[in-house]
């Protein structure tokens, strides 16, 4: 009974889109960081290369001037020493903090030859020992190549390079350059604002994601709460309405349960005891059904149970089990034990009913029978066996008819009132019985609905439509039930069948029939719009009768209204019918919708309809449904 709620499409899109956007922004951020590192490396290399080329020139100058006697010459010529130190200091620029020349003595100690440092505390003396912190100095001597290291442990320095000064491939000294940390900071500070923006956007997106999920969670918690009866903690009627929007009763049996003489409990013991009794009875019912069954508090002391996929016998056993369980359970109250009984009405085949209200009505009638039969009993719809056998027989008959090609389509002309020409033909499904007599669809369609046979028969009709349209130039109308529009299999049949024939689609009108009120216009609209996008025209059949009303025109993009025959019949004598049809015609004109008057049977009716500017007429007067095309209808 802990049935999960159906999740809307918008929610799915939202739930996918938001994490995707978040992941995207994180990806962009990480890519930016990578790019930043690459840019950083490029800038670093550029800076180093620039300085190294200067050091290279300086090194060449030194070797040309001093040869192998560098240390000795500088030691013996203080002026020369000063001159070369000044010359070296010119290479420093803003990027280099310390620039110096080292050599390695016989004891393998590094000593200063030149030092361009201006700060007296930092400046080394000639021949002063240099304590290496890294191995780049040794490596520059041994590898005879430029060495670069990052100064991670020295706070004011960023990078140190050691450039070997060579004569005849022998290293005689090393030029050392310490790049200042300020350069590093300058580059980092240049790139930081952009990094921050990306970081903030990613953080913002993550926060938004968390907030969104919290809101969604709270929304669904509240929504679920609104579906739960606060007293008994089972589903309420609102849940049932919601559930039925997206689910079929095909796999359920329906029970209506009512507590016998519950009013007396409330009157005699008070509402607190009454509430306790209700809770206790619900507990007993829950113990008697399974997880996949649905228990709903339908009214005050009335409950509805949808039993999932059981045989009739098992369903009745469950009903008896519920009744016994409640009857044998003693409910403890303050002063005494109360024993409750319940009456149960069962509708074993609710999906055969026209709609859910009708299914409940049947169960409710049985509940009433149980009540008048003395209460504390289970009553089952008397139509059960009949329905079951009839249904089985019908399904078998239709299957045979399909196998033996006895499923046909008749064509009834729809004639223009403006030019008296046949505008199109409506295809009407017909089944020929084994004797060759025509069986109207109403006699076999309800039995096969929700079965695969229904899908097969729909495919036959679509094939007929395709064939007829290919062989003729006129337009056709084909009927589809509203439930067909909601059925993915049937929608795919229509779309796939006409997939390769865009021109034929333009000549086919889909007439939508329905026998229950539309509760979810969004889905219907989406389906109808998708058909219209493919080129099909959409007509509403039987407009003005039952559920087919003006609400359609508000929500759906309709091309044609077929005015119900009940309004056309006697239109010449019935003023009410006249005014309704007149209003429909006038309204449709303003909406740009064509109108068809159905079931026109007399000339008097035709005259009135023509006077009301109805666009098309259809009926026995113009032509009966026929397996041949009547191309000469009467329209005087």
């Amino acid at each position, binding site marked *: 009974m802990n049935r999960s709620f159906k999740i809307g499409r918008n929610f799915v899109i939202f739930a996918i889109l938001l994490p995707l956007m978040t992941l995207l922004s994180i990806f962009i951020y990480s890519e930016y960081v990578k790019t930043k590192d690459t840019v950083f490396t490029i800038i670093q290399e550029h800076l180093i290369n620039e300085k190294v080329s200067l050091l290279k020139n300086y090194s060449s100058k030194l070797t040309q001037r001093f040869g192998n006697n560098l240390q000795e010459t500088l030691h013996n010529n203080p002026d020369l020493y000063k001159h070369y130190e000044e010359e070296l200091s010119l290479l420093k620029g803003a990027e280099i903090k310390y620039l110096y020349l080292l050599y390695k003595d016989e004891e393998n100690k590094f000593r200063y030859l030149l030092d361009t440092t201006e700060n007296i505390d930092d400046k080394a003396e000639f021949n002063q*020992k240099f304590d290496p912190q890294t191995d780049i100095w040794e490596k520059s001597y041994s590898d005879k190549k430029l060495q670069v290291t990052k100064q991670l442990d020295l706070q004011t320095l960023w990078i140190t390079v050691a450039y070997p000064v060579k004569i005849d491939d022998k290293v005689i000294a090393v030029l050392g350059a310490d790049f200042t940390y300020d350069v590093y900071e300058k580059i980092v500070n240049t790139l930081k604002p952009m990094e921050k923006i990306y970081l903030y956007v990613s953080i913002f997106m993550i926060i938004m994601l968390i907030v969104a999920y919290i809101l969604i969670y709270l929304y669904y918690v509240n929504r679920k709460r609104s579906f739960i009866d606060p007293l008994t903690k089972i589903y309420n009627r609102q849940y049932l309405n919601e559930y039925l929007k997206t689910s079929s009763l095909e796999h359920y049996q329906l029970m209506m349960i009512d507590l016998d003489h519950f009013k007396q409990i409330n009157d005699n013991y008070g509402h607190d005891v009454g509430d306790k009794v209700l809770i206790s009875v619900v507990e007993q019912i829950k113990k008697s059904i399974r997880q996949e069954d649905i228990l709903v508090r339908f009214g005050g002391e009335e409950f509805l149970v949808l039993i999932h996929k059981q045989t009739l016998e098992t369903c009745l056993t469950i009903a008896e089990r519920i009744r016994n369980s409640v009857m044998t359970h003693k409910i403890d109250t303050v002063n005494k034990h109360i024993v409750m009984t319940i009456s149960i009405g069962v509708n074993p085949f609710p999906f055969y009913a026209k709609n859910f209200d009708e299914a409940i009505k049947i169960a409710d009638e049985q509940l009433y029978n149980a009540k008048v039969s003395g209460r504390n009993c289970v009553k089952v719809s008397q139509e059960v066996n009949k329905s079951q056998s009839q249904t089985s027989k019908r399904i078998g008959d239709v299957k045979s008819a399909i196998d033996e090609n006895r499923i046909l389509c008749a064509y009834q002309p729809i004639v223009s009132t403006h030019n008296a020409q046949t505008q199109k033909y409506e295809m009407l499904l017909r089944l020929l019985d084994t004797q060759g007599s025509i069986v109207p669809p109403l006699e076999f369609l309800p039995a096969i609905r929700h079965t695969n046979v229904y899908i097969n028969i729909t495919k036959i009709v679509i094939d007929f439509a395709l064939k007829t349209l290919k062989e003729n130039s006129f337009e056709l109308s084909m009927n589809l039930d509203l439930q067909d529009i909601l059925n993915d299999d049937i929608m795919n049949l229509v779309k796939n069948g006409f997939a390769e024939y865009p021109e034929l689609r333009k000549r086919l009108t889909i007439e939508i029939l329905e026998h229950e009120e539309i509760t979810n216009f969004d889905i219907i609209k989406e389906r109808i719009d998708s058909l219209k996008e493919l080129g099909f025209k959409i007509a509403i059949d039987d407009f003005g009768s039952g559920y087919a009303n003006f609400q359609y025109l508000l929500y759906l993009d309709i091309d044609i209204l077929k005015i119900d025959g009940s309004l056309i019949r006697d239109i010449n004598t019935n003023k009410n019918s006249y005014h309704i049809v007149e209003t429909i015609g006038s309204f449709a004109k303003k909406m740009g919708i064509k109108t068809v008057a159905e079931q026109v049977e007399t000339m008097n009716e035709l005259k009135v309809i023509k006077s009301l500017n109805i666009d098309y007429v259809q009926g026995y007067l113009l032509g009966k449904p026929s397996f041949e095309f009547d191309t000469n209808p009467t329209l005087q």
Partner: protein
Amino acid sequence: MIKLIAAFLLIINVYASDDKKASGIFNLILKEITKKENPRVYIHTNIYSIEQYPGDINIVTDCNKADIALLSTTKNLPPECNKKILFGSRYSHLKNPNVIGSFFWQKGRPNILFYKQRLKKHNIKLNPSFDKYIED
């Protein structure tokens, strides 16, 4: 021992502040010079790092009681310190022949320098790991 000093220097270089680093190195050097685990050190006139983070060093205010005097300047040195071992904290302190060695920062890098003759004069023998810091 060399590895120990190198590891120590590396660790304190990476993780410690300059003052902590300096104090750690001073501790190591002064303990080696005095061969004491808790050398008594007289500071003239002030060396922030060692005063802030003395470590194993026992700072004394009377140079008579000190095992060694640590200098921030060679000027105005109390007369009672004249007979003590002097250790500098700048390269320039080494110009004073009584200063046996110095630990100082140059170009952001720590430097240690001892003079062999001056160590000999005070009959100080350092661990061979200090050899690379000893100059003739």
